[in-house]
Structure formats: C-alpha cells, structure tokens
C-alpha cells in the first residue's frame, strides 16, 4: 500500500510558493493524509481518493480505482456475443441501453448485419432516454452533494416515470438486456409511444424546475463557479470527452463528428461552455437534457413502421411458432444460440454516452466468442482529469468536482 508521505513532511519541505494561509511559515503545520473512500457517499461509487491536505487545501491527490473491477473483458472471451449484452448493461448502470446500443452496433458492423429502420429508430430513442436517465441522476446527486437535497427527489421522480416506461417496453426497469443483434427484443406499441410522447412533452417543464432551484442560486454558484477549472488544451490532452470536454468550449460530440444510428437526420444543438469549470459542466448537461427531449419529440413523431429485428435467419433467432413445429427453424435456433460466429476482423466503434466516448474495440477470431474486447470507458479517462482539477482547491470542492465530472465506477472499472 503506497503512502503519500514517505516521512513526516513538515512545512519547510513543501515548495516555497505554496500558500499556507494565516500564520504563514512561522506556524508549524503538518499535512494530513486522508483516504476519502472507497466507502464514501459522495464519491459516486467505490472510488478511493488518497489525499494530502494542508488544512483544507489539497496538496496531492491520488485516485485509486479498481474496487468495482469485475473482469468484463476477460468474461467476454468466454461468452457469446448475445450474452455479452448483459455485461454491457452493467457498465454505466445509469444508462444500460445506451451501452447495449454501442455493443450491438459494433457486432453488427463486424458481421455485416443491418438492423431495419424501425429498430434503428427505437435504438436512437432509447439512447436518448438513457442519456436523460444518466443526466437526471447527475442532476440529483450533484444537487445532493452540494447541499440541495430536494433536487434529488425531483430528479428521481422523473427517473421513476422513465423506469415505468422502460418496464412497459422491456419488462425490466433497469439493466434491461433488451437489444438483440439485428434489432431489438420487442416492439414499441402505439400506447407506449403515446405515453413516451406525453412524458417527453412534460419534461422541459421539469427541467425548468431544476433550473429554478439551482441555476440562479447564489449558493450553487459559489460552490461551482471557478471550481475544477480545466482548459480545452488540458482536456484534450487528458482524453476527456463528453460534457466535460464541451464545457471547456470544444464542440465535439460523437453524434455529429462520427455519426451513427439516426442522428444525421435529427435536429439538435450541441451545447458548449466557456470556462470549463463545474458550473459550465452543469449548464452543458442541463441543456443536453433539453436537447434530448427535443430529439425524442422528433423521433417519436416520425417513428418508421416495419420490422423491429432483421429478417435474417442466419443471424437472428427465427419466429418461435416455427421453432416449435418445424425442424429447419429448430436447427437455426440451436445454431444461432450456440454457434453464431461473426467473421474474423476487428472493429472499433464509439458512441456518445452520457459521459463521453464509449468505445468497444472488438477483435474476433471467427469463433462464437470474441477474442478480445476492450471497452474504452469515458469515466475511466475523465477520472484522470480529477488530479489537475483538484490540486490547490479546497477539500469540499473535491465533492463538487466529483459531482460535476460524473464518472460512474461501474464503467470506470468494468
């Protein structure tokens, strides 16, 4: 176990430009080594921050990750492609279907399968619902972490309604395992589309409620303005993507830069910030929630009709009725479940998850299980920005910075 202090560090050992506050160098002070986490309500999961504090100021920070490492990439080498959907769900567990979409697109690209337009539309709808789901948690937890407890309740009230919609569509509130290679697991009924449409129409008013509580709130400003500032150059150098990068002013959004699904046909704005601090990250995410509602309204109004899974007997399970009674479909069922093998090759495909660029690098050797899956997890990379953001700031700012970075340890550790 490495320690941040090899020996007792006294004031005279620290660099001369370090600000010691009242008392200056005449006051004998010792830096304090604190381990924040891994069991901590404000670290967004099991993150351990080893801190060296001078009073309240952070001198050194060392984030330790890996407490939620479940070996997904190793498991992928033993599982079939369809089974791996269950593991992708549990990456960023706030937005399960968005992770699944990335994996489905990656495998379909490898195998040369194309999902029908209705399936693509349903997947786009679910991506945006999941973005809202993740941002609602961020809004709620960000509020709670900075002291605004009722914010949590409002955000989760909306999320419960979203869960009910997911329950009606997929049968599960979260970790839905709803996507299939070639399409989705079941169809959207017209009643459900109407319910979704109503929820989406009511949603911007709820975002106004969140803004009423936080955006003009002086306490929130004091806690977030100027906190965790990072320049665009630093952000790109650190590989930060997603809202944290856009808050620095760089308008890079994978839905526009490397488009996928139906995004080229949709109208939406990409919000950017100006200063790259925690408050700009807040503004960017709130606006992204509004833009997601706008995208959903467009999609739900113009949902294409047709098949929701590819009509492809070699790659998709055949109709159940035929499996019960016909030998050929029964054989296809067995072979597709147990021996479905995509061709040899490699695919890297990234989607814009709520936290940034979620990429799957899939290497296939032509077997029924992948040869290697590397998950490019945005939370893992964005967490590297914690160090430059927190050095020199106060201890209580760490909580605000962690809340604004919004990494999810499930995705970080895989």
């Amino acid at each position, binding site marked *: 176990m490495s320690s941040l202090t090899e020996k007792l560090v006294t004031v005279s050992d620290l660099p001369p430009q370090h600000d010691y506050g009242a008392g200056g160098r005449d006051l004998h002070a010792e830096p304090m080594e604190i381990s924040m986490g891994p069991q901590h309500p404000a670290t967004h999961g099991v993150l351990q921050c080893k801190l060296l504090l001078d009073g309240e100021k952070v001198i050194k920070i060392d984030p330790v990750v890996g407490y939620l490492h479940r070996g997904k990439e190793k498991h992928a080498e033993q599982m079939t492609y369809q089974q791996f959907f269950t593991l992708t769900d549990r990456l960023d567990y706030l937005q399960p279907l968005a992770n699944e979409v990335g994996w489905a697109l990656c495998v379909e690209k490898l195998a040369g399968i194309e999902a029908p337009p209705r399936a693509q539309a349903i997947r786009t709808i679910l991506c945006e619902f999941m973005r809202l789901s993740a941002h609602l948690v961020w809004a709620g937890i960000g509020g709670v972490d900075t002291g605004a407890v009722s914010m949590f309740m409002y955000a989760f009230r909306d999320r419960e309604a979203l869960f009910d919609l997911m329950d009606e569509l997929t049968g599960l509130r979260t970790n839905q395992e709803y996507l299939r290679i070639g399409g989705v697991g079941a169809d959207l009924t017209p009643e459900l589309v109407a319910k979704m449409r109503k929820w989406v129409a009511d949603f911007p008013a709820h975002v106004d409620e969140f803004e*009423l*509580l936080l955006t003009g709130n002086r306490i929130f400003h004091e806690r977030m303005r100027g906190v965790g500032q990072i320049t665009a150059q630093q952000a790109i150098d650190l590989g930060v993507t997603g809202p944290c990068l856009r808050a620095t002013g*760089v308008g890079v959004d994978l839905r526009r830069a490397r488009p996928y699904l139906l995004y080229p046909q949709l109208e939406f704005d990409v919000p950017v*910030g100006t200063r790259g601090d925690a408050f700009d990250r807040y503004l960017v995410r709130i606006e992204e929630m509004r833009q997601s509602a706008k995208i959903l309204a467009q999609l739900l109004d113009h949902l294409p009709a047709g098949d929701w899974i590819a009509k492809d007997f070699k790659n998709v399970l055949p109709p159940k009725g035929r499996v019960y009674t016909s030998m050929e479909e029964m054989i296809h069922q067995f072979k597709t479940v*147990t021996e479905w093998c995509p061709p040899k090759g490699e695919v890297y495909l990234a989607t814009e998850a709520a936290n940034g660029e979620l990429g799957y690098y899939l290497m296939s050797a032509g077997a029924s299980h992948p040869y290697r899956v590397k998950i490019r997890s945005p939370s893992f990379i964005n967490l590297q920005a914690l160090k430059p953001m927190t050095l020199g700031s106060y201890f209580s700012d760490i909580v605000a910075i962690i809340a604004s970075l919004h990494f999810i340890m499930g995705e970080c550790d895989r």
Partner: protein
Amino acid sequence: MSPETAAPAAPPRFAAAVANPKVMQRSLTLNEKLFLGPFLKSLAYTFSRMFKKDVTRRYPEQKMEVTPTLHGVPVLVMKDDGSPRCVACGLCEFVCPPRAIDITPGETDRPIEREPKEFVIDMLRCIECSYCEEVCPEEAIVMSSDYEVVGRRREDFVWNLKKLLKPVEALKARIEWIRKTYKRWDGAADLAPPEGGVYRDPRWAGKSKPAEHH
C-alpha cells in the same frame, strides 16, 4: 484533397467540432446576487409541493401493476399430468449469462427423447434477462410475474425442479406474450404449438416409444 499539389489547406480548427455550438453562459443577476428574492421563491416552490399530489408508491401496501411484459423469475411449465414440458435440451443452460441454470438430463419412459432428472436455477445468480425463455424450443421455461423472491438462507434461493414447476394456467398471460412477441416480424405464420406442448412426430403416433436406434 487533390493528389498532385502539395499539402492540402488546413481545415478550420477542429473539423470534428460542430460549426455552431450553442454557447451556454449564465451569470447571476443583481436580484440573484442579493439572494433573498430567489431564495424565497424557491422555498415557496418546494413548500407548495407539500400540497400537491405525491408520487410515492407506498410499497408493499401498494404494489406496482403487473403486466405480461414484466420479467419475474423463470419457472418451468407443468403439463396436466404433472410432468415438465422441458426436454432437457440444454439451450437455456447454455445461454444463461450468469450461469444460473444447471440441468441433469436423463432417460424417460415418456415418448420423448429425454427429460430433466434435476433442474436447478440459482435465483441469486438469475438476472431475469429472459434469454432462457427466448431460446426455449418447447415453451417450457417462462418468466413468471413473481419478482419478490425471499428467503433466509442462500439455499432457499436455489430452486429445484419441484419448486420451479408451475401449472400452465398460471402462466397463460406470459405465454400469450411470448407467442405474440417472438413471432418477430409481421407475416410470420402464427403457429401455436400443439396440445401438450411437445412436438409429436406423426411417425410415432400410436407407439409408446420412439423407434430403437441401432
């Protein structure tokens, strides 16, 4: 980019960035800086929520509405004579992502190839993904609407064949959902399985056992 000339002209900074991002800026107004006005406004708003209809569902007195779409735990369908529809093909065991299903197949006197001698699902491992139900070629394993599985010991969560068998009447709604959904695309013939749930090859009709294999 023309191949003959020298290096192409540099594109505007960051071709990967959108051309017209929406720049978000917000500073506090004087009223907000004074804080008292907005403070009272948001306090009044939160206060007013006390008198609005609440959205809390008081579980367990109020339970959520159970639809056929809901994934409960998987159970085995029991035919009228008490035997399982399952023929121990092993597809559900193969596809189960958390490896929750464990089947011991065995020979049988019934006119089918084999049946499960023992069928164990560890509900602590089950994630209720319904892959087992989707791959089953016999409509033998079906998601029930039982989502409240409780027990005092780990062993209580390991369900064996006896505990898993449920009569087909209790699962009718879900079986209808399966047939409707796993038709997969319009135009696929809606072929319901024959009575008894087991495909009966007409070659064996009237015989008690399939022909001997040499």
